[in-house]
Structures are given as structure tokens and as C-alpha cells.
């Protein structure tokens, strides 16, 4: 599989299309013949899906960040000569990426935000197409940078909230939360972590393994034991699949339950989420979302008459959340809508 030279964040690119063309054409032929997942964008030698897949090969990269990088590559490799055409191409690429996984909120949100961020610039008024295009690429790269570095920024911001001797409850395996805990452990803070099992995908077990490798004292709980242990807990840390406009979050099934228990026992609930996860959704209740199902293995056969609730996500309303740690800073839930308004309107 040909790996494009775009694996690095920034590639030297010259406005003259002459220098670009040879590279594309050399890369085109092997790609079209060997790759079965041809881009849905007909007639284009450059496939955004491939780009996306290549970015996803890096294990630490979030899905949305890979999509953002892929879209940035689309702009770079675009052969359009007018701004309108460029935007249409970008929109098509974004739609094809989103259709790959319709249940992923962060992917959708990331693509939409990228589109808005990049095209919302007065550079589009320039008469010279090339300079406008270079400006777009600049913004796209910047957005990609921010998204990549988001986790580190969030980890730094949250260090003030973890004090020596505290007990943190985490739910599910969020790479952002893991980064937060890793940074805290590396700065020699003494704390212990309660990990929920995280059925049905057992993500809690994976997280506890990772934390044990960092020499952080970890205690594993089954999901039902959260209320039992909430007295000993100082704070709850969760990640988010998406942050919605009301300030609430959509996350792995069980987050709402934990937030309710924590709220009734006056424990703070902190959410670590990158800013590209801000989505223009506004669920009114649990059923108001795009359903995402995950099959559950009970270990014993279930009779067919019995229904199983297989939803993989739930929605936590903003009144149960204390603070959001994002790369834009430490925010209260009501600020999410302000940010979205400023970006979208």
C-alpha cells in the first residue's frame, strides 16, 4: 500500500501545480489497481478514504483527527480552480467520510467543524485563487495541529484539579482521560483510580491494565458498584464521544448513571473532551439521538422472546456535569453553546 508523503503534518508545497502533478500521477496507478476501497468520489485520483485510513493507522490518533488531516489533504490535492468548486469537493469528501461511520459523533462533528473553520475566513474574498487556497491550507493545517495537540493541552489543564491523595473514578477507556492520568502519574502525584468494568466492551479492563503499567494504584469495580464506592471517591473523570449544544455529553453507556450518583452525593464530574467534538446536536432525552448499537455477550444463550437493550451510548444532561476540560480551556457546560454560536454563525 503506497503511503503518501503526507504522513508528516506539513509537507513542502509550492503553489505551482507543476511540481505537484508528477507526485500524484506516480501515486495514482498503484493505488487504483490494488486498493479495493476506491473513493466514492468518482473520477478523482485522490481518495479521501484512503488518506483517512492511512492516518488511522497511527494508534494514538483519534478518528476525528484522522478525518481532519484527510480533509486537509483534500484541499492540498484539489485541482479546482475556483473557490466554489473547492468547497463542493470538500463537502463531497466530508460526506463520504461521514457515511463511513454514521454513528460516530466525533467524526461528524470534527468534519463539520473543520469545514466551518476553514471556510469561514475573509481570505475567501481574495481575487487570487492560489493565495486563497494557500490560506485555506494554512488554516486546515492549523486546525489539524490544534486537534493533535488537544490531548496534551487538556492533560496540562487538568493537572491542577488532581491533588495528592485523591481518588478518581473513571468510566470506559478514553484516551484523553488516560493522557490526563498518565501526565499526573509522571509528575509524581499520588492518587488512586477506581475503574469501572465498562461492559459490554470491557474497556475498563483495558484501562486498568494500562494504568497498572504506570504504577498507579487501580481498583476495578463492576458497573453496579459505583454507588457503593462513591463515598470514597473525590471526583469523577470521563471522556466524551460528543459534546452537545446544551453542554451535555454523549458517552459510553453508564456515564449518565455515574453522573447522577455523583451529583446526588455532591462529587464533581469532570469531562475531558477536545473541542472538535462539539456537535450541533441537542438531544432532549435519551431516545433523541442517532442510535448506536453494540451487541452484548451474556455468556449464556438468551431466549428469543427476551429483548435486550443494546444501545451503546447515553446522554448526560448538563446539570450533572461540573466542568469541561477542553483545549479551549476549562469551561462550564453553558459555554459550549456560545462557542458553537460563534463558530457557526
Amino acid at each position, binding site marked *: 500500500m503506497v503511503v503518501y508523503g503526507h504522513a508528516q503534518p506539513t509537507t513542502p508545497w509550492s503553489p505551482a501545480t507543476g511540481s505537484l502533478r508528477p507526485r500524484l500521477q506516480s501515486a495514482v496507478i498503484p493505488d487504483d489497481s490494488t486498493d479495493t476501497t476506491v473513493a466514492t468520489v468518482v473520477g478523482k485520483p485522490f481518495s479521501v478514504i484512503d488518506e483517512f485510513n492511512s492516518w488511522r493507522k497511527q494508534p494514538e490518533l483519534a478518528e476525528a483527527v484522522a478525518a481532519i488531516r484527510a480533509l486537509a489533504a483534500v484541499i492540498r490535492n484539489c485541482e479546482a480552480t475556483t473557490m466554489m468548486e473547492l468547497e463542493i469537493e470538500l463537502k463531497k469528501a466530508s460526506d463520504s467520510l461521514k457515511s463511513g461511520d454514521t454513528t460516530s459523533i466525533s467524526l461528524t462533528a470534527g468534519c463539520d467543524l473543520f469545514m466551518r473553520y476553514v471556510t469561514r475566513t475573509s481570505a475567501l474574498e481574495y481575487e487570487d485563487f492560489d493565495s486563497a487556497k494557500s490560506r485555506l491550507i494554512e488554516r486546515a493545517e492549523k486546525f489539524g495541529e490544534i486537534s493533535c495537540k488537544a490531548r496534551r493541552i487538556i492533560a496540562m489543564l487538568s493537572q491542577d484539579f488532581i491533588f495528592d491523595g485523591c481518588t478518581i473514578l473513571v468510566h470506559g477507556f478514553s484516551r484523553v482521560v488516560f493522557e490526563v492520568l498518565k501526565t499526573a502519574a509522571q509528575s509524581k502525584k499520588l492518587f488512586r483510580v477506581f475503574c469501572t468494568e465498562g461492559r459490554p466492551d470491557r474497556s475498563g479492563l483495558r484501562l486498568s491494565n494500562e494504568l497498572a503499567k504506570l504504577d498507579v494504584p487501580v481498583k476495578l469495580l463492576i458497573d453496579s458498584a459505583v454507588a457503593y464506592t462513591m463515598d470514597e471517591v473525590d471526583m469523577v473523570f470521563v471522556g466524551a464521544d460528543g459534546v452537545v449544544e446544551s453542554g451535555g455529553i454523549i458517552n459510553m453507556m453508564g456515564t449518565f448513571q455515574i453522573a447522577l450518583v455523583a451529583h446526588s452525593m455532591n462529587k464533581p464530574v469532570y469531562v475531558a473532551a477536545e473541542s472538535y467534538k462539539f456537535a450541533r446536536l441537542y438531544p*432532549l432525552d435519551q431516545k433523541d439521538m442517532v442510535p448506536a448499537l453494540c451487541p452484548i455477550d451474556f455468556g449464556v444463550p438468551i431466549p428469543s422472546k427476551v429483548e435486550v437493550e443494546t444501545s451503546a451510548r447515553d446522554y448526560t444532561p448538563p446539570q450533572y456535569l461540573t466542568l469541561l476540560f477542553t483545549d479551549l480551556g476549562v469551561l462550564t457546560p453553558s459555554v459550549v*453553546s456560545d462557542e458553537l*454560536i*460563534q463558530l457557526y454563525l
Partner: protein
Amino acid sequence: MDPRRAPRTVSDPKVRKVGFFTDPPDRSLPGPPNHPISSFPTSPPSTVDNSPPSAGNSLSPVMIPPPRHSSSILSPLRRDPPEFFPLPASPTASTTFSDDVASTMKGRGVAAASSSLPGGLLFDIAASSVPASGLTTVSVVNNLPIEKGGGVAVEMQDDQSSRSKSLKEKTTKAERRALQEAQRAAKATAKAEDGKTPAAASGAAASVKSGKSVKPPPSQKNDSAALAALEKKAGDRPPEKDRKKEVPQPRMQFDDKSRVEKAKRRAVVKQTEARNRVELFRHLPQYERGTQRTELQSKFFELDPVHPAVYKVGLQYLYGDICGSNARCIAMLQAFQEAIKDYSTPSEKTLARDLTAKIGSYLSFLIECRPLSISMGNAIRFLKNRIAKLPLTLSELEAKATLRSDIDRFINEKIILADKVIVKHAVTKISDGDVLLTYGSPSAVEMVLLHAHELGKQFRVVVVDSRPKLEGQLLLHRLVGKGINCTYTHVNAISYIMHEVTRVFLGASSVLSNGTVYSKVGTACVAMVAHAFRVPVLVCCEAYKFHERVQLDSLCSNELGDPDVISKIHGREDINFLDGSTNSENLQLLNLIYDATPSDYISMIITDYGMVPPTSVPVIVRDYRREHLWI
């Protein structure tokens, strides 16, 4: 400060005493010491004689803390003006005016003098003896039926005089007031530049005073009264000016008698205030409805300043033919469009200023028919802004065409297209099997329901209605006509029906900056019951109705409707238990039009900017008001 406040004694349960007041406990009927005016400045110098506070004016329940100088200095001034005030409102009540021309001339002359003095609120009080407004409508006011105006003045005087009579002797009061007036006149004399003023002032003061049928003051005290007024003004002017600069013009509070009188003098339509009013809502205007209508109809051919289109809209407001903030706003803007079309700039005047003044006069007429809603206020701000921004190089025809197209664009973008966007967002929140509840007859919600029905969604609607307007019946009629399953109930059954409801859709007259929804009375009840049942509440409101005001309760700013409709039910003449008791002292009827729903009970606000939580309203007001509203 007094070391210990006098114990509170309840004299009249109707009068709620709120705030600080220093009443000596040995009075027979301790009433509020003075007649508070909200922006009352520090007390005047000591030339005013000391006299114990009288309880003559227990009209306003809300007191302000008396200043550090004793309250006694304030009281005579505060007390007497109310008796004094009814006069300027009806100068024609006096029989000594030979003709109207003379009175208007005097009014104008004095107005010239008064306008030369810096405007201050206290000045209004002090110079209440002189009509402070030199507007052309003064002559119109003078043409009004004399009996009515005089009747009102006399009645009000009777109220106050009877109350004061019961508490104090007449002579001392008359003497004190005479002294006051004399001081005021002397003040006006000392301050005025030209010599015409003292004559005019004293003349007006004398004529006004002689017009008073109850207590004729001696005319030789003019000078001292003017002097007192003058000194008081001098002391008060600097704080007034500073205050006026920082603080925005407060809304008209109708328990402030001086300003009410001033407004009455300027009024195009002569209205009689309703007499039996609830104490808590004294700060809101309430007029006798019957007199309003006959007044307006009789003056149709006399109202030159008012364009016929505006007059028609005003009458429609008065009779309640146009209801709902969108409809009212559109009607008003279209009337203004007509008025602008027929407008022609008088010579030697700029279009911008003259047109703004004309719009202002139309507005005062419309306000007298029915107080403005917040959406109308925003539209007016937009219009005035557009007028002010007209380039000077435009010819009159071009300017008028520009303005008319601006108004068209405003109506189209901010109301009609905004409604379409709201409908598009809101139907995504309606799913099959929903039971939707709505209250009253909000235009935006009706469009949402009809559109969702067209899209083929299966849902049913619960329409909640309330007296006295019963607007829900119109909505019910239209929905059933389109084939939507509906349930109809009144607001007293709201907790009974709420358990089967999945979503609540409400309309709004306005959304304020702290997320409070200001809407028809009863909306707050519905929202709170929905919240208790954990049913999401969605408010559909166009963004042009947002306002940067903050309101914490439904009392400080509201509108009072006609109280008679509460006691009577249309079509059921046999229910007449309250006939005859509407004027009794123990019964006050209250018909509130609006109420304020706190933001905690609202789940989402659907605007043309999308679906936002109530906490984001100030962001929209702050960031987009400038760009988008006043393009």
C-alpha cells in the same frame, strides 16, 4: 440614620408598605410620610418650613429610604404637589381661562422658560404649576371635553383632599402649599432670562391655582414658592444630570403622579385612569376601556398629526382585533410604511430628524391605545436606526423608497423567513407517537405543527387554553381543520393532562437576557408543571424578539388588561355575581397580560439562529444584534 425605626403599624391592609419610612408612632393614622418619586434627589435647602409628615397620599406603597436630612423637610413638598398636579392636566377645568389660545400661549411661553432650565426630574415636580410640554398637542388636549378632564381632576383631588382632610387641618396645608408655590414662582423668576417668564410663571401659577376649586391659594405667595423651587432645583441639578447620563431612561412608572400628569398633558388621547386598582400594580397604566374607545372615535377628524393608517392600527390594537406580537409588529410596520409613503418633508427641516419626530408622535399614539410589546420596541429601534443612517445625499423620494424597502426586508427576513427556519428546526424534534402540548395560540408553534403534519408525522396535540381571551380555541379550530388529532383543556387541568405529554411547545413574546421567557400569562404555569413532570419545554421565538433587559419577576414590568372581562363571561349573562361590586373598596380585579418564566424551566429555545439553550440568549443579543438586526 435613626437609631431605631418606628414599629410598623398596619393601617390599611390594602396598602402594602415596603421599604423604609420613619413614622412617629403617635400619629392617629400613620401613613407613608411622603409621596415617593423613584429618582427623588437629595432634599432641598431649609427654606421650606418644617412640618410633620402627613399621610395625605397613601397612593404608592413602595417607599424609598428618606434622605439623611429629616423626612419632614421632604414631606410638604412631596405631599402637596399631588394635590397640585391634577390642575395642569386639565387647565381647562379652570373657568378663569378666557380662551384656549391664551392658555396655550401661556403654556408655550412658560415652556420656553422651563426648557431653558436644565431638565431634571425634580424640575418637573417643582414646575408642575407650569405645563412643561410645549408640544402642539397641548392645544389638542385643551380642545377635549372639559367636563371629563375636570371631572377627573376634581375626583382625584377629592380622593386626596378627603384623605388629607381626615388627617390634617385645611388651613395649615393651604398655607404651606401657598408658600411652596410662591417659592417656586420666585425661583422661576430668579432663574429665567427674560422678564416674560415671571409674569408667565406667576400668571400660570395664579391661574392654575385659582382654578383649584378646593383650596384657593393667595397669590402674593408666588415669589416665595418660586424661590423655593429654584433653590431646590439648584441643589438637585448636578446629581440629576449625572444620574441621567449614566442611567438609561427608566420606563414610565405610573405610580409616579408627576410623570403621569406630564404624560397626560402630552397625551393625544384623553384617558381616564381606572379607579379601583390593585396596589401592587400601581406602576402600570390602566385606563377605563369604555372612555378610550369613545374618545378615539370622536377625535378621528381632529387627529391631524396621526396618519390614518396608524390610526387604524391603533384602533385595531385597542379593540383587540390584532393580537400576538408578530401580528402587531407587522401591522405597525406596514402602517409606518404607508405613513412614510405619504410623508413629505416640511421646508427647512431635515428628513431624518423630522421623520423621527413624526414616528415618535405616532408611537405615543399607539402606546396610548395599547402599550408596546418588546418585539415592537425592537422593530422601532431598527427603524429609527435606519432613518438615522440615511445618507444625506439621497433625495426625499429615494430616502423614502429606501426606508420602505428596509421595512419590507425586516419583515421578510426577521419574521417570515425566521419562522421558516424555526419550523425546519422544530420538526426534527417531533417524532412519531408524540403527544405535544401547546398553550394559547402562538403563531410559530402553529406553523411547526402544521408543517410536521404535512411531513406525515403521527402525533396528537393537546391545546391548553385560558380565560379571558380563550385564544386556544382559534388554534384548535385551525388544527382540527387540517386533520390533526387534538385535545382541548383549560389551564386548571394542566397537572391532570401532563403525565401523557411528551413535549411542550410554547411561544414567546420576548426572551430576556437572563434566559427568562416573557410570554402570555399562564405560560409560566405550563412550563413549571412540565418541568415537574420532566417533560422537555421548547420555546419557539424569533431572534428579533430578544432583548437585553433582565427581569426577575412578572411584577416589575407587565401590562394590565381590562378587568371587566374577568367578571363577565361572554354568552353567559346569568353569571353576574360581581355586578356592582367592581367599584367596591374590598374588591380589585386584576387582569395581567404577561408573565415571566425563569430559564430553569426551559429546555431549549428554537430561534432562527438554531436551537440554543436559554443561557445563550445574551450571546446572540450581544454579538448578532448589531450585525444582523441593524444591517
